[in-house]
């Protein structure tokens, strides 16, 4: 059968042969379709994972509409095709296309990747290859798009230094439009690729790896990182929007046809976190804390409900219960939408500020699951990580939940934390048992039926820009031993125990704190068949190890090495606001299990308020 064009071939011939063709159709409600001949800039917003994961990401929703609100820009979505689709594409010489237009993205102006987790990096390589775009920045010419990347992992951009033309560090709402303006100007000058990269390097938060050189010491640590040209900044400062008041938020969002991971409205109530948990990268890099005003939130919620038809709003932030007017917001939203059956959910609740009243309010429309994150099993361990909660907090919270009829709760823990001993592992089991006992203290007629506590233990991965950035990760064998111990210790019929694959966590640790030398390893691993590393069924540890061996890079150097506090770290030329001095002092305090207070109470001097003139903290 002959088809008019490749777009029709994809739709009529290729899609019937793949699993979940709904991933690739691009005509979802509120998706934006423009006439490509009437725009000047075409942007492929790529999420290097499958549709259901990528479509659940709030940042993409915001930036997609932000760009499309510009008349001369057409931004389309691209996700990593699932392996069955990839096979069909390669067999039929179909290249990677934008979902909305089904045009190949190799002719676009920009191909932008969002870096949400390290284990998506091989998908970036794979997607570029599928698009027919040269993998390395230096191999691209004037006919190729610029490859740009942003998102939390971009704060250590080095493992992707030769793949991505430029990185955008920090918040995109203003910076992205500024970059587009630079592009318009550059296009007028008909300049070279190199000239554009030099121009864009002056935008706040933009890092162009090829404009920096790195040299190494004999022990393989970094000797010096410096710009190769005079007017290029020594340090790249992340971009920050001063206030969320009036900050861009779309009044419509795409409503997918197929079921996705987070299929609901995500209403961002505030950005940043003041708690200062020492393992948490998000808590450091998203500073300072900025709240959106209640009036604005209610207005945005209203528009989104109207335009999407969603039946649930999730109040999104790093720690919802820290929102200063949470009760008021919840009451207003619940009373407004109760009759139209719009449910509310709070994704992350701290166990010290969990309120029974609040949870009763939230579940007026729909009941959703409850997750608590004590993170560690003993008080000493929780103090090391500066979690700032105790056993009583947890007992009060789960107790309140059980008394309102909940019989299903999840508890999140980490194993492999710095200074951890077998007592701390046992503590996870003991604490979970105490939660079980707490359930049975609730009178039978008041409590729910069939208690099930899910205890999850993930393996700790030390991350850049955290007080633990100097710490080694536990060896894989140790993590497995700890998992086995805990699995045995926590066995009870009311408890479901989940754990994470330590091999994946190891690789995550390597890339999280990796440097430029990992870029070749990454490309090699992809050549050896690695992709979708975040998916257990596709993760190939042996192939990864082979890649390290062939390139001649020692992965343990990155995962298992304790860094000297004076060592130059691969991300030292990136400025996230929080200073290295502060991180060092937090690290030293952690080893003494000393707490640092929440900086909403009083400034702890992390440095973020010096990032911008005038300061941004309250």
């Amino acid at each position, binding site marked *: 059968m002959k088809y008019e064009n490749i777009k029709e071939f994809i739709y009529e011939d290729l899609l*019937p042969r793949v699993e979940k063709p709904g991933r690739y159709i691009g005509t979802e409600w509120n998706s934006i379709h423009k006439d490509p001949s009437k725009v000047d800039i075409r942007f492929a917003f790529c999420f290097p994972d499958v549709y259901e994961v990528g479509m659940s990401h709030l940042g993409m929703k915001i930036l997609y509409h932000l760009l499309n609100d510009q008349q001369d820009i057409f931004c389309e979505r691209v996700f990593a095709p699932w392996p069955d689709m990839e096979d069909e594409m390669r067999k039929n010489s179909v290249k990677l296309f934008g979902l909305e237009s089904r045009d190949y993205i190799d002719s676009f102006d920009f191909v932008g990747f969002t870096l949400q987790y390290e284990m998506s990096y091989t998908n970036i390589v794979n997607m570029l290859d599928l698009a027919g775009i040269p993998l390395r920045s230096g191999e691209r010419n004037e006919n190729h798009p610029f490859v740009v990347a942003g998102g939390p992992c971009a704060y250590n951009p080095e493992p992707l230094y030769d793949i991505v033309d430029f990185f955008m560090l920090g918040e995109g709402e203003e910076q992205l439009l500024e970059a587009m303006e630079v592009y318009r100007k550059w296009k007028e000058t008909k300049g070279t690729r190199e000239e554009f990269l030099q121009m864009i390097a002056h935008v706040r938060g933009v890092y162009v790896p090829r404009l920096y050189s790195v040299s190494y010491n004999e022990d393989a640590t970094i000797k010096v990182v410096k710009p190769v040209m005079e007017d290029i900044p020594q340090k790249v400062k992340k971009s920050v929007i001063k206030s969320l008041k009036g900050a861009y938020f779309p009044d419509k969002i795409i*409503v997918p046809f197929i079921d996705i991971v987070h299929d609901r409205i995500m209403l961002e109530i505030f950005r940043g976190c003041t708690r200062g948990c020492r393992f948490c990268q998000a808590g450091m890099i998203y500073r300072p804390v900025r709240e959106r005003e209640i009036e604005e939130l209610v207005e945005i919620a209203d528009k989104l409900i109207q335009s999407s038809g969603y039946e649930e709003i999730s109040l999104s932030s790093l720690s919802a219960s820290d929102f200063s007017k949470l009760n008021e917001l919840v009451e207003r939203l619940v009373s407004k939408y109760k009759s139209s059956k719009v449910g509310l959910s709070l994704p992350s609740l701290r166990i010290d500020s969990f309120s029974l009243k609040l949870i009763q309010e939230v579940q007026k429309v729909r009941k959703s699951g409850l997750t608590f994150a004590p993170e560690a099993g003993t008080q000493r361990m929780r103090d090391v990580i500066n979690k700032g909660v105790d056993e009583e907090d947890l007992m009060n919270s789960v107790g309140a939940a059980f008394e309102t009829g909940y019989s299903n709760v999840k508890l999140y823990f980490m194993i492999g934390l710095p200074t951890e001993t077998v007592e701390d592992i046992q503590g996870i089991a003991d604490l979970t048992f105490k939660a079980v006992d707490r359930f049975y203290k609730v009178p039978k007629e008041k409590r729910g039926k069939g208690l099930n506590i899910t205890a999850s233990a993930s393996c700790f991965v030390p991350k850049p820009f955290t007080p633990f950035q100097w710490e080694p990760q536990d060896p894989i064998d140790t993590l497995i031993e700890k998992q086995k111990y805990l699995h045995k210790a926590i066995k009870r019929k009311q408890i479901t125990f989940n754990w994470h694959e330590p091999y994946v966590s190891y690789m995550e640790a390597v890339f999280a704190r990796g440097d430029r030398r990992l870029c070749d390893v990454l490309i090699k691993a992809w050549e050896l068949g690695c992709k979708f590393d975040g998916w257990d069924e596709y993760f190939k540890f042996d192939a990864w190890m082979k890649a390290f061996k062939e390139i001649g890079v020692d992965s343990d150097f990155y995962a298992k090495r304790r860094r000297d506090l004076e060592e130059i770290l691969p991300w030292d030329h990136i400025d996230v606001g929080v200073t290295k001095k502060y991180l060092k002092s937090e690290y030293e305090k952690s080893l003494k299990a000393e707490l640092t207070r929440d900086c909403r109470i009083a400034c702890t001097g992390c440095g973020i308020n010096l990032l911008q003139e005038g300061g941004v903290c309250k």
Partner: protein
Amino acid sequence: MNIRLKFTKGNEVKYISHLDLMRVFQRAIRRTGIPIAYSSGFNPHQEISFGAPLSLGVTSDAEYVDFKLAEPMDVQEIKKSLNNSLPEGIRILEGIKLGDSPKSAMSIVTHARYRITVNIENVAPDSLSKNIETFTAQENIKVMKEQPKKGFELKEIDIKPMIVSMKLTESRETMYIIDCLLLCGSKANLKPELLLTAFKAFTGYNIEGIKINRVEVYAEKNGRIVDLLEY
């Protein structure tokens, strides 16, 4: 007040599943503000149900949805309002008010008519017609069917009793249009894809570019079949 609407599922939405389609309607209804009734309980859901599910990749001129309203509303108004809120490819054609405790569309469907467009090289229209005749005249038509509820285990079934009619209606070069009326519903259900599999095996034809469109679904009423708005 109970409503039944007839709608299309066009080429634009042929890859979304039955479950997806339900969500599309639920959200479109919420966007319009049509006063739909909700069930009571911990997780209230809309009082809405659909007729016979359609396979992925199949288009339709005649799908049916039933729902209950909490307050009365004019059917034409509902149609207009929903058509502004549904994605491309889904169009409400017409609708009726149902009685107080109506039988669901799902439970009354017995038949469905399909228009199957195929591409077959090296065959004359006459011999295709003839082959269809011989094929349907067989005593039994055995074919292996996947059983989704049993881990896609294969089972041999006889589809002959489920074929009411099958005939060639149009031919243009190598393109042929076959019309067929098949049993459809909870008692007996023959998917046109399975019919084609059996026909392929019988004739040895290389059938390509298959496009299937459901033309109508029917229910039995007083010994004859009528469409679901007439029922």
